[in-house]
């Protein structure tokens, strides 16, 4: 069970973190533009 929780926690952190950082970067670039 621990491995299952760690596996999905990692996936959510990586995919969600990347999506969040991308959207923040996009907003920043569009503001500069």
């Amino acid at each position: 069970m621990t491995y299952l929780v760690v596996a999905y926690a990692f996936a959510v952190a990586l995919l969600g973190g990347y999506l969040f950082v991308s959207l923040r970067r996009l907003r920043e670039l569009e503001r500069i533009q």
Partner: protein
Amino acid sequence: MNRYEKAAVAAVALMLIAGVAIFVFAPTDFLQGPVQRIFYLHVSSAIAAYGCFAVVLVGGIVYLRNESAAADRFARAGALVGVIFTTVTLVMGMLWAKPIWGTYWTWDARLTSTLVLWIIYAGYLLVRRLAEPGRQAARIGAVVGIFGFVDVPVVHFSVTWWRTQHPGPIVVNDALPPQMLAAFFLTLACTLVLAAVMIAIRYRIETLQDEREDLLVAAQVVPARQPEAAR
């Protein structure tokens, strides 16, 4: 909220639905227990990564044919998102392997070729980051992206070409009960949508960054020419 943010919210909502299918709808595996639920996102991420690297391949070919900046941007976006999905595949696979095989890693054909795939595209990203932006970097990137794709069929067919610790194809061999199969296809569809949204967002970022760089280059060129014009 712009259209990219709306698309991201929709993709996250779809992934939450996939989460319900994985943890509520899909039955627990009799032999492996709850840890088998890693399968759904592990395999979906691998297929999403194949799709991303196919974008790099097509982008590279189109760039070499007509030097389209848009194709190069798609290739860069596909490589980054593909590396992220390959990372998810590798780490989830390792965390599944430990309770089932007793080890996080073994150098069998499937695991090794997937690690090589990750290294190829991480190398691609490194080349694009370190090389001076321009035609030369885009050409080198296109060639690396095209030849790198050779590893995708090697990864996919490694379980049938060689004897591996990693299990062979189970989805195409009808080895899953219908509820598991339905949960898998739903997760796969949602993961592919998420990958497409991530590529679209990255493509937009690459476009804005390219435009900004062009403006900066133009701004550097203008002051350099001014004293000449004054003479």
